[in-house]
């Protein structure tokens, strides 16, 4: 079935919505500024619904099947979140309303900041970034501002491991940094010797991903910390893979200075075909002064009583890198993350990671016989295979992906990470069952 496009279905004179009649006198329109033509399609409501319903059926989603895209944490997200995120009191509020009239929203954001701080071990959180890459930009600007605030202007380089997600070097570059690649060692870790060699006073910091994009925990994490901090650099941790470490380890206790989370992966906002997301960014106490404004804050009891409002938007940060978006971040995504955390609590979070990691390792043992495993060790949330052997037989990873589609599965991530030949990256998540695997 191919579905015609909206413009092809259009027929002059149709409309999909009746609007209210004008109930005030007409004013004079600015004739010189008016457009002659508005070439939008014209359809009735019925045609629009049919069109998009049919289009949707051409998609594969988590709701319709197993979606083991590596690096994407395509977990199933509870339907309850869709409902609560649509409460009128959440969607029908304007970002410029006075704080007194949005205390519920501010409380939710403030508590979410606190929960994420608790989970990451990094005490100060901004919810303003709306995607992982947005968080990276925010975080790297904070690192830059930190060095600048100390008059440490010579740090022009950022180190990025070769296994890093493409957004990492891109974000560093947007902050004006020169990107230098750190190679991986034979076990899939950052090559510590290389790191030590590269790390000097021209380096602003290291962007690492832990667990990394190979699904592996950075084995020398404490040593890395010493090296980077020892040379005056800061550690940025890409926390997009936190699904493997919830309640298991706090990046803040592993030397991380700045970290972003992908609320749309780990904290249960569906991917939406590519957004919206949430890239909440957490930093150490020392770096909190640089966070984007505003941050949501809580007043002490006396002040709260006096102003009538316990929660407020705090714009008062003279060292702030400035705002990174139009308002306060993707509030709707925060509502889902909040609901998720309140559902799970500490125990539930740990269960998520334990099951995600168990599933990935189980899958690893099941597939190991058939595909090359570039790194022989147990993984965390995802596993990466190589289709090298198959490629020798003329079957490339892309062919494998296509065949899986024919069989009714969504294929895994292919050709990433770039450091593995013919990569096949599988992240089952905790929401899949043994039978499916």
């Amino acid at each position, binding site marked *: 079935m191919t579905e015609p496009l909206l413009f092809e279905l259009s027929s002059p004179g149709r409309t999909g919505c009746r609007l209210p009649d004008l109930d005030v006198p007409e004013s004079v329109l600015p004739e010189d500024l008016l457009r002659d033509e508005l070439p939008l399609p014209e359809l009735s409501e019925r045609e629009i619904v049919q069109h998009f319903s049919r289009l949707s059926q051409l998609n594969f989603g988590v709701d319709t099947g197993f979606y083991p895209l590596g690096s994407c944490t395509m977990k199933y997200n509870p339907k309850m979140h869709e409902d609560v995120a649509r409460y009128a009191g959440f969607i029908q509020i304007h970002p410029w309303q006075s704080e007194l009239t949005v205390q519920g929203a501010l409380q939710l954001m403030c508590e979410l900041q606190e929960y994420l701080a608790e989970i990451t071990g990094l005490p100060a959180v901004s919810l303003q970034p*709306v995607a992982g890459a947005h968080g990276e930009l925010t975080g790297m600007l904070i690192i830059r501002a930190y060095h600048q605030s100390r008059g440490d202007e010579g740090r022009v380089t950022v180190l990025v491991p070769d296994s890093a997600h493409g957004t990492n070097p*891109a974000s560093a570059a947007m902050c004006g940094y020169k990107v230098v690649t750190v190679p991986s060692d034979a076990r899939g870790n950052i090559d510590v010797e290389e790191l030590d060699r590269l790390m000097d006073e021209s380096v602003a910091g290291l962007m690492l991903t832990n667990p990394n994009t190979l699904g592996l925990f950075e084995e020398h994490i404490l040593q890395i910390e010493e090296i980077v901090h020892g040379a005056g650099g800061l550690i940025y941790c890409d926390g997009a893979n936190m699904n493997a470490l919830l309640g298991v380890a706090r990046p803040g206790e592993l030397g991380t200075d700045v970290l972003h989370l992908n609320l749309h992966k780990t904290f249960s906002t569906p991917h939406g075909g590519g957004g919206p997301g949430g890239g909440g960014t957490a930093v150490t106490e020392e770096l909190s002064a640089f966070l984007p404004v505003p941050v949501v804050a809580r007043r002490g009891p006396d002040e709260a009583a006096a102003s009538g409002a316990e929660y407020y938007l705090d714009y008062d940060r003279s060292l702030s890198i400035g705002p990174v978006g139009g308002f*306060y971040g993707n509030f709707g995504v925060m509502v889902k993350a909040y609901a998720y955390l309140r559902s799970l609590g500490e125990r539930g979070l740990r269960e998520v990671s334990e099951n995600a990691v168990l599933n990935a390792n189980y899958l690893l043992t099941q597939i190991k016989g058939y595909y090359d495993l570039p790194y022989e060790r147990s993984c965390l949330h995802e596993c990466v295979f190589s289709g090298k052997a198959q490629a020798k037989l003329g079957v490339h990873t892309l062919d494998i992906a296509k065949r899986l589609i024919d069989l009714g599965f969504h294929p895994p991530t292919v050709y990433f990470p770039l450091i593995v030949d013919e990569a096949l990256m599988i992240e089952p998540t905790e929401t899949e069952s043994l039978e499916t695997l």
Partner: protein
Amino acid sequence: MSSYIPNTDTDRAKMLETLGINSVEELFEIVPAQKRYPQLDLPDPLSEMEVKRLLQALAEKNSDLNHHPCFLGAGSYHHFVPSVVDHIASRGEFYTAYTPYQPEVSQGTLTSIYEFQSMVCALTGMDAANASMYDGATAMAEAGLMAARVTHRYKLLVASSIHSTYRRVLRTYTQGIGMEIQEIGRAEDGVVDTSQAVQLLDDGTAALLVQHPNFLGGLEDLALLSELAHSVGALLVVCADPISLGLLKAPGDLGADIVVGEGQCLGSPPSYGGPYVGLFACRQKYLRQIPGRLVGMATDAEGRRGFVLTLQPREQHIRREKATSNICTNEALVALAAGTYLAVMGRQGLRQVAELCYHKAHYAAEAIAALPGYERLGGRFFKEFVIRTPVPASEVNDQLWGHGIIGGYELAKDYPDLAQCLLFCVTEMNTRQDIDHLVEALTEIGEER
């Protein structure tokens, strides 16, 4: 065990056995022991029923626009969202899909983005549009960066009549790469001071950035501004309100090179500031410098039409630090809503929405300006206008709230010269009764002084 995790204890035992280990904990031994399993101080887990009640209670602590007439705009707009829009965005196949990297299983998303891009082009008068940016503010910032890539120049000239947050985000985005940003003041009637523009535009200028209708609601002279910008080889970047484009000439037809905008007003509620969606469109010749994803039409081996992500070598997952932007996840679902909205409204409907806003805003402005003590500032406008109030603006708002009305945006924080001014926004959601009620309340407030 949570109802979101299918594995049962038996399942886990079976898997552990296959793995040849005794407990899941063993899989985490790689984590330094002293840092493993920290105590997390989080609230106790709740059941679905309890979470819903908790969230309901939080939601009801907010005063929502279903129950209060609202005259706030300033970057977030309360427009009517037909039911169809959310019904479409609630299709599981749409909202639980990933970024459409795998075209065979993503034709739904890809086609809808292609249609969204086409309609953004239609609205803005541009040749090409991307799949979306985070929001209007970041879209404008990225437009500034793109202008620099296109022109290899590093100065941006920014109208002070642009949304103040947008200007600040532009500064945030450019602080690392060290671009120079100069602001142009406003003329008498609140629009760009063109003589100042002429002075500041030079051959180091990458782009002139303006908003139309501008932050204060006023209508800029795009044709003139584009002429001025182009005369020194700079681009004209226009940040436009897409609803206004139902009525107003397309910026592309007036010389804009890049058009950006906030797409929230197209089918998404105000949502306390997000998720929103940035619109981004440009001329064909600059396409290779566009940030973000692009969907294009393609034909498969059997000659069937299909849609794919195109020009990917601009993007971070291929180009890494040389990409046109770091953006990866964008706002696909909000773009789907915007696309649906534009299809539902269509040619006639969007014009009608724009006209309703225009006439209602002018009705309100006239009535308020006629009140003793109140004065309207600025020239021609679309749906927002500035009123100088007889008592401090924040006091006016407090008193309006006493009448159950959410008043205007207080301009003092952005424009010291507009200290006692409110920016009012009127849309099709404000009935005549709401407006009359506002006018009465303002009358009272004015009299009390």
